[in-house]
């Protein structure tokens, strides 16, 4: 079997994506349900704020500073509760993502399209393992402050101690980019480790993580190209959203509906990325150096 180029893997992922409509739909619904719940709580506060008054007619619309001042003042007590609700909402969303991740990975690994039976069994099977995997990945977050300190050190070497002023906002953006970029990379590392675990469920969380790191090291150009292509696509998606935002209504149902197109696009990209990474892993493992055979049929496990 020929090793596919990244382009081929991406192409194959998009050609297969039609077969994962249920998966995409499910991930989308999770996003929608969580955001609707959080928004509903905010709407209650907005209603208590603006429902009885004409405050929503303030010049400049609902998003100018006057309104922020009014809202934060008159609903100050509600915001404490809202903050807690948002934190809980995000935590539950994260947990649900972790739960569904097993199903998505297992299906994509089988490469046979949506299969509810496999999906839900894999969800249940991998959930506790993914939690352990997540716990193993968490210490890597320490890389972020280390990287920021190193970046500041490098900038100091180049520009001197007042690099903050020499570079101005560029220094701020660089540090922000580093933090966000590292967080996203760690998320991708976790995603790869997850796929490694799904391919060989006997691996522990740590083993999967090590396997993912090894893969990244051995196949750095491949994985880098893959992530670069997908970053481009994500950025393009975000860019079209920002550009189209001006053409869409300021608020209302049409805005909400149109917005879902982009969120669905985002979810499609997510599944396509998983698919691409999965096929890259498969073909990496299927290279002659690795002796095939002798392994139990893993798919039986779930």
């Amino acid at each position: 079997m020929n090793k596919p180029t990244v382009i081929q893997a991406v192409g194959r992922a998009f050609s297969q994506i039609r077969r994962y409509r249920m998966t995409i739909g499910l991930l989308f619904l999770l996003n929608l349900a969580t955001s609707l719940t959080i928004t509903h709580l905010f709407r209650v506060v907005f209603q208590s704020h603006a429902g009885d008054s004409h405050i929503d007619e303030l010049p400049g619309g609902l998003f100018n500073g006057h309104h922020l001042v009014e809202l934060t003042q008159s609903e100050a007590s509600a915001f404490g509760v809202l903050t807690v609700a948002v934190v809980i909402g995000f935590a539950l969303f994260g947990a649900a993502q972790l739960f569904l991740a097993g199903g998505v990975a297992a299906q994509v690994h089988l490469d046979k399209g949506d299969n509810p039976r496999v999906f839900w069994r894999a969800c249940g099977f991998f959930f506790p393992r993914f939690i352990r995997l997540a716990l193993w990945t968490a210490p890597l977050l320490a890389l972020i402050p280390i990287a920021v300190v190193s970046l500041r050190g490098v900038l100091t070497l180049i520009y001197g101690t007042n690099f903050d002023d020499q570079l101005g906002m560029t220094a701020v953006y660089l540090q922000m980019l580093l933090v966000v970029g590292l967080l996203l990379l760690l998320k991708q590392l976790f995603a790869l480790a997850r796929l490694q675990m799904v391919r060989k469920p006997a691996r522990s969380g740590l083993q999967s993580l090590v396997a993912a790191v090894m893969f990244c090291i051995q196949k750095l150009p491949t994985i880098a190209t893959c992530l670069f292509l997908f970053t481009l696509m994500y950025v393009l998606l975000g860019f079209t959203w920002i550009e189209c935002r001006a053409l869409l209504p300021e608020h209302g149902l049409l805005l909400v509906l149109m917005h879902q197109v982009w969120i669905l696009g985002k979810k499609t990209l997510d599944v396509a990325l998983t698919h691409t990474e999965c096929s890259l892993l498969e073909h990496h493992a299927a290279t002659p150096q690795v002796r095939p055979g002798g392994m139990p049929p893993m798919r039986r496990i779930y």
Partner: protein
Amino acid sequence: MIGRFTLLGVTMLGWFFVALPALTLNAGEALSPRIANYRIEARLTPETRTISARQYLLWHNQSRVAVDELQFHLYLNAFRHTQTTFLKERPSSARPYDRVWGGVDLKTIKVQKTRTGVQEEVNGAVREHIRADHNRFDAPPTPETLLDVTDRQSFIRPDDGNIHDQTVLRLPLPELLPAGASIWVYFEFEATLPDPPIARTGAAADYFFAGQWFPKIGVWQNGAWNCHQFHRYSEFFADFGVYDVALTVPANYHVGATGRAAAPSQDQAGNLTYHFQAEDVHDFAWTASPDFVVHEEDVDQVHVRLLIQPQHREQIERHMVAARHALRAGPELLGPYPYDTLTIVDPHPEAGETGGMEYPTLITVGTKRGLPKGVRVMEATLIHEFAHQYFYHLVASNEFEESWLDEGFTSYAEMRMMHSLFGDTAPMLDLFDLKVSDQHMNRAQLIANGSIDAMAKKSWEYKSYSSYGVNSYAKPALALTTLERVLGRDTFDKILRTYVKQYRFKHPTAADFIVVANVVSGRNFNEFFDQLMNDNGALDYAVTDVRSQPKPAVHGKGLEPEKQDNPVYVNRVELRRLGTFRFPVEIELRFADGSTKQEQWDGRDSWHRLEFESTAKLESAHIDPDYKILLDINFTNNSRRRTADSDGADRLASRWLGRWQWLLEALAL
């Protein structure tokens, strides 16, 4: 004219009053009283952060009272050690403790003799000959001819009795200085600029900003010295005069200062001496650094010098856009800018403390490289500091005692100019959905801290820094905007211009402004200002209930049932005053058929009820529907619908849904 006067001995009272001749100051026609006039020769030694100087002060006693002592501000002494009044009020500024501490060390103080020493007795009273007052600013005496009074100096602490504070110097005069007379006072001193800078002044790396750096005479007012200690929040108060300052700095330094500079001269050591002259100003500040990139431009009649840090070079045009607007919109709003220069200083990054400050014809700003265009803090600061050229620099109210008169009026003018430059929606912050104006920021402050103190207090008497801030900046700015909206912009602008015109080069107080406001508007704002200045109460009017019901038919003996062709509604609206601040309000009533009706309430009682009939059902009531009263701390309760409406909430929610969706995606795999 000040000729040969005689002062009758101690027993004789009868002060006489002499009309001052046009002072013998060589430069131009006097716009101001020119009471405190300084000639200073100063030399900067960058290594030690010191300025060695000789200073001649020609001070005129333009009061009707003879003066027996002089008082001076030694502001830099606030940064001598941690026990000064300033640093006790703001201990964090003292750090780091291994800093270069600031201070003014007076080596020599000399004064001119006022009497000739000849006494004679006439009809039992002692008659003494006073020297003829021939003092000319351009001809200072030689130090040798003056009387050394170095030993007579002492420090006083009029505000708090803190024995460690050396920011006010008292200098008893050997002889009484009669009303109308002038006196030369000579100082030799060494000023040390704190490094890192504290509160407006100091040195950092090769950047020097000298503000409040020389012995500065207080204000002789109503027979007493107004010469406060330097406090954490307080600014300044001084008399107008002429400044002639020679500044010697290393040859590679760029210098910016109050006033105009002549071409520099070079000494044998290669140092350059810049000669600055400024008339009718009440302070002199300067900066020096080899790093500055100098941009010069004439904006109409004013020569603008922008001294900017090299790394901020790409923001020269951004600074100039704001400067050009300020120099045009400022005079349009407040009357002519009487000087021909404006120097704008961008402080060194390690000297942020010297940013955002105003001196006559010199302002400091501060920016960050790559600052997004929609974040206009730099522009707001530049425009604010320029507006200070009017409030305190021209209309010289007492910043120690009535900080709102300068900061409040300045903040108001800043708002006006920011709005005319960047539009009404988001002059301050225009980032994606976030649209903020200075008005919003002022209201946020008012709501959070507005009720801690009454507005008019001495600057060190406010409970906290935020209370000083809201009462000096936000509250008066919003009060003035409220007046502007209630009176109409034309009338209000007339008030403002009259006030500036009448009190330029004078020391007005709040009472003076209130008189102008009353006279020009033809209304009485005494109570408004009284509540604002002397009471910490909030202004908050609310609609608490709106009802509208079909009129019930009448029944019973002797009453004819009314014939109703059209339905008639009986309406009731309840209004409440939730704060103690009283202010008349307008009420707009809206009906189901789209019609509206205006009502008035003087706002004096704690509640007010409107009861009336109408042919259309009443839908809502709105106090101050045009949001003229920006002092109202709660706009939400200003209006009330009879039945709740979810339109606003739906609109908000429909936008927030998308935001949450994207945010959640950050966690998605």
